[in-house]
């Protein structure tokens, strides 16, 4: 019954989305009175998808094996939290989650967006309904999550153990919220292009959505990076895996959009540009979903190989992106360009930011899709990995990090002051960092050396916007920007330290043997069998000493029975100045165990930096929403917005 209720709710929601689309066309043709019902319809549609999603959670929580999806992806002996999380740890469930978020976002637009004109809002709601309609069709035709299985088997097939991790429970929802938050920017852009009302009001309505989506993407990428770091046991934090790129590409586009939208909001300039970025950002979300969900990648995350689904998603992608680009081509040229600006100005700085981010996005996009393209065309198999991405994106990222220190110091319209004078101290810090690394570590590789230099410079330069004024009277958005830019410096420092100073030891040891890694002396005390709810394991007990510090680490190799799989559970100990990372492998014939040990100085700064960037975004979002709530005057002129 529960599964059928979920399915019925989904069909109803799909029907409402279709109605919403029809009403939009009527509303755009004439001032059609009934179109005002679109707001209520959007809300009801959001509620219906929530009901459908809740029904899926219930069948998973109850381990109802008569539902095919539960049988394929769950088992009765799993811990409860993974039973529930299993609902979206598979293809159908995650697509249902996607469409739920899409419809709920539409409902919130209908409830909250008061800043755009009524016509643009209705057009945007129509666009959002069209987006949802495609995904409803996808669910109902090609991936019904509520399909039944008869007779019901006693137990399910289990869930990939690699995914039985708290990371699984929160990582995909965070990313999906980010992806789908960008759908609102897309719909608002499409709506505004349809009505021709691309102005600073639109930008201010769009901004909280972009900011919110960007925060969640930042968090999702940071958490995903840490998950890969400790769960895969390879000691790396970014693998340039296509699935990682699938989340990085929307983030890059959203970062560019976030910056250009400020120009539109504050100055009414970069209209066509910003609309283009809004379209690209959500297109990248769809590309990401396509890459992960179609199963065309050689990757841990690609679950099923099912050409029908892949084709369906690709068709949706082509239709939506194609239609948006055509609309842009037709309407984009007629947009009036806004207030002019000089070559050296805040606007120019943001344009350069956008250009560099777009180039990075372009090279990541090409590198990710090139292997698929080549294989489809010539059948030749190749892979594009870290060497490519590091070589093409690394230097650009460093240049961008240098410019991040300068842009916020520039004034809107034109800069007449001597901005570079203010950068004396940051520049000196950067030079000091070069000199110190050359004296202390003459053989250091060039990239980490540059990383330390730029990090030292940017850490100082990023806080300059708060200096020379009363920092407590600065808007929250300024604080947020400073914190996010400072976070880049922190992450960069962590990456440089990890690249320059990591020590690694790979050896075999019998209980009682001692190994050294970096400053640590590590004694293998014992290897013992142990067990959890649905796994058995061997666990090594390691005693690590450094001076007077003593810690015990217990890495494991786990064996899961359903489905039969092994995973390496690394044991990681965090200190203020780094992490000790240990993995136990397999025994050899003589009873010695393989151990892999790393000492990674300051590696945690990478994720701390990511968290700071997201927190900066959150501060800015609170500041913006505060203003929206207090100054909800539709006639507010852009000149009044005291933006810094």
């Amino acid at each position: 019954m529960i599964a059928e209720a979920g399915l019925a709710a989904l069909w109803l929601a799909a029907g409402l989305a279709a109605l919403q689309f029809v009403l939009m066309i009527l509303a755009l043709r004439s001032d059609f009175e009934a179109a005002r019902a679109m707001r209520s319809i959007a809300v009801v549609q959001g509620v219906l998808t929530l009901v459908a999603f809740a029904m899926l959670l219930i069948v998973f929580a109850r381990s109802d094996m008569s539902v095919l999806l539960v049988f394929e992806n769950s088992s009765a002996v799993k811990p409860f939290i993974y039973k529930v999380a299993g609902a979206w740890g598979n293809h159908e469930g995650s697509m249902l989650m996607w469409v739920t978020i899409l419809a709920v976002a539409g409902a919130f637009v209908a409830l909250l967006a008061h800043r755009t004109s009524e016509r643009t809002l209705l057009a945007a709601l129509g666009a959002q309904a069209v987006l949802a309609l495609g995904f409803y069709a996808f669910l109902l035709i090609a991936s019904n999550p509520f399909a039944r299985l008869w007779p019901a088997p006693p137990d399910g097939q289990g869930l990939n153990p690699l995914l039985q991790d708290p990371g699984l429970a929160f990582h995909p929802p965070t990313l999906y919220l980010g992806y789908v938050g960008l759908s609102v920017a897309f719909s608002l852009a499409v709506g505004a292009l349809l009505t021709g009302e691309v102005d600073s009001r639109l930008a201010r309505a769009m901004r909280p959505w972009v900011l919110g989506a960007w925060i969640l993407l930042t968090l999702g990428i940071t958490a995903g990076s840490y998950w890969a770091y400790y769960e895969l046991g390879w000691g790396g934090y970014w693998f340039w895996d296509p699935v990682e790129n699938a989340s990085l590409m929307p983030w890059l586009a959203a970062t560019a959009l976030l910056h250009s939208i400020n120009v539109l909001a504050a100055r009414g300039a970069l209209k066509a540009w910003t609309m283009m970025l809004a379209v690209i950002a959500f297109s990248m979300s769809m590309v990401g979903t396509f890459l992960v969900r179609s199963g065309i990648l050689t990757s841990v995350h690609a679950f099923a190989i099912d050409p029908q689904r892949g084709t369906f998603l690709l068709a949706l992608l082509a239709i939506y992106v194609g239609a948006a680009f055509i609309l842009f081509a037709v309407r984009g040229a007629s947009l009036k360009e806004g207030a002019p600006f000089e070559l050296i100005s805040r606007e120019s700085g943001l344009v350069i930011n956008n250009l560099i981010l777009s180039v990075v996005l372009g090279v990541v996009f090409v590198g990710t899709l090139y292997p698929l393209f080549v294989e489809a065309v010539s059948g030749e198999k190749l892979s594009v990995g870290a060497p490519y991405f590091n070589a093409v994106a690394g230097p650009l990222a460093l240049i961008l990090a240098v410019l991040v220190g300068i842009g916020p110091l520039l004034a809107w319209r034109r800069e007449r002051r001597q901005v570079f004078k203010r950068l004396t101290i940051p520049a000196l810090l950067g030079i000091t960092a070069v000199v110190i690394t050359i004296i202390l570590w003459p053989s250091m590789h060039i990239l980490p050396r540059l990383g330390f230099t730029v990090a030292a410079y940017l850490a100082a330069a990023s806080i300059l916007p708060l200096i020379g004024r009363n920092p407590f009277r600065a808007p929250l958005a300024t604080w947020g920007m400073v914190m996010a830019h400072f976070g880049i410096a922190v992450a960069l420092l962590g990456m440089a330290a990890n690249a320059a100073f990591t020590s690694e030891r790979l050896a075999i040891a019998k209980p009682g043997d001692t190994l050294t890694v970096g400053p640590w002396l590590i004694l293998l005390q014992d290897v013992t069998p142990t067990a959890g709810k649905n796994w058995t394991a061997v666990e090594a007990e390691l005693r690590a000493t450094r001076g007077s510090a003593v810690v015990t680490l217990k890495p494991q190799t786990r064996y899961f029975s359903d489905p039969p799989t092994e995973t390496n559970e690394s044991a990681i100990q965090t200190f203020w100045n780094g992490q000790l990372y240990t993995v136990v492998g397999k025994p050899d014939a003589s009873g010695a165990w393989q151990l892999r040990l790393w000492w990674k100085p300051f590696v945690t700064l990478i994720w701390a930096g990511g968290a700071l960037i997201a927190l900066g975004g959150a501060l800015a979002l609170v500041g913006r929403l505060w203003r929206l709530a207090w100054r909800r005057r539709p006639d507010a002129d852009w000149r009044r917005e005291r933006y810094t």
Partner: protein
Amino acid sequence: MKPKNQRLVLVVAAVVALIAAALLAMWGLRSQASYFYTPADIAAGKAHEGEAMRLGGMVERGSVQHLRDGVTIRFVVTDGKAKTPVIFRGIAPDLFREGSGAVAEGRLENGTFVADTILAKHDERYMPPQLGNLSAEHKAGKTLEK
């Protein structure tokens, strides 16, 4: 700057960025893309020594040897047509087993494939598409042998 000129400058900047991205990507792909080879490709001389590449195939039964240091293994990868010896230093991945599929990343040195990383099949249901075809061919080969 007049608004009209400003738009022109922006369009030119966007086009330049697009071209720069394309050139950069082409340069990077030419020097850094690593091709996927099977032992048969290597036997046919398609792969060059020292170039970054991926090798895919089945780990031949009975071929895995552990070296004295305990962390280096040698094994043979086969696609049913040819064989390539592989040497790997590190902890082999969870599902690395004789008789099952593996993809190794590394380079050829004097006819031996020196692997930096080994990617194995990740669970019983999951199979990289590159190996999917291969295992079908391999199975077909086996049936023929019988």
